[in-house]
């Protein structure tokens, strides 16, 4: 698949390198050229410095030819704006985005974006880690969370 990942933070870079390692054609977009340092040395995808909310930038990287577009910047509004441009201006079929605000996440999910909201899950998990009877029990919980994520 051809996949565009907007935002090369910790999540964006991890996602891009995993997708690329699996043989996908990945392009990572970030406004900050130093953000690409998060990518592993053996990353085989493309990096591009530019703003994913700019229709011209998305045109230049031929986002219309992508199978999927994912926005993972720290800004909810930036993420949904870029995702909607990819979907409605360029007709990308699979458009996914991370939204921290649970209310906005629900709304944009109902409007046809594939959304993920890390806030609730993380709050619940942190609560369970605090409530664990011992440090060992807390660490075991965290290991269990990571195992679930690898499934």
């Amino acid at each position, binding site marked *: 698949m051809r996949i565009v990942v907007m935002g090369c933070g910790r999540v964006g870079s991890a996602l891009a390198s995993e997708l690329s390692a699996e043989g996908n054609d990945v392009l990572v977009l970030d406004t900050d050229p130093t953000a690409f340092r998060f990518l592993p040395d053996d990353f085989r995808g493309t990096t591009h410095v530019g703003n994913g*909310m*700019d*229709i*011209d930038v998305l045109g230049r990287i031929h986002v219309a030819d992508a199978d999927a577009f994912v926005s993972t910047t720290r*800004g*909810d*509004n*930036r993420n*949904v*704006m870029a995702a*909607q*441009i990819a979907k*409605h*201006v360029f007709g990308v079929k699979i458009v996914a985005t991370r939204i921290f*605000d649970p*209310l*906005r996440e629900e*709304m944009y999910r*109902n*409007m046809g974006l594939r959304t993920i909201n890390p806030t609730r899950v993380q709050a619940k998990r942190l609560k369970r880690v605090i409530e664990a009877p011992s440090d060992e029990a807390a660490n075991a919980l965290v290991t269990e969370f990571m195992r679930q994520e690898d499934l």
Partner: protein
Amino acid sequence: MVTEAKKGMYIIVVGGGKVGFHLAKELVEANHEVLVIEQDSVKAKEIADELGDIVLDGDGCEATILEKAGTARADMLLAVTGDDQDNLVACQVAKQRFNVARTVARINDPKNEQFFRKLEVDITVSATSAIMAHIEQELPTHHLSVLVKIKGSDLELVEMRIPDDSRVVNQPVRNIMLPYQSMVVLVVGEDGLPKVPSAETVIHAGDEVVAVTLHESEQQLRDAMLSPASARGF
């Protein structure tokens, strides 16, 4: 006798920068009920000091804040922050969750105008486009300028000054190959008098012509009305 105050609308202004502040001030003076939502508490306080208790300190893109603002009973929401993405989201939340009848977004990047209007934004206002339009009108090389976009369609009203070498000079309107859904609606000759053209009206060099066209047909209209006669082997 006390004159009853004219009953205005309830208008929410998202963003208390210069645009938001002056807009709120004008709206208050025009007897509308106004609420400014500004997330910078220093700015929020400055506006409150100036305009009174009409400011809510918070993020106007958040449903909880818009709920507090009574957005469900708002007649209009104006999103005028300096960031296009924030203005888009404020309008979308207002429409989706609170059914606000009219949403207006300030736009910085003119390329976003069409896309915003596809997505819950009823009206877009772009200072960049407005200034460009004025500049284009002043430039002798730009013979076509957009006067206004027609609401609820992709149509716009454009004005053209017919150049001396245009292929339509001394041609009647019926000879002009206009693009799809385009029509000439007004001709102002050198006498300065407006004339609704018929098929037989002859166009002269220097005429000001007002036409309706689809946004995407602008270039075709330019070609049909403004390009030199030789360009298409006339």
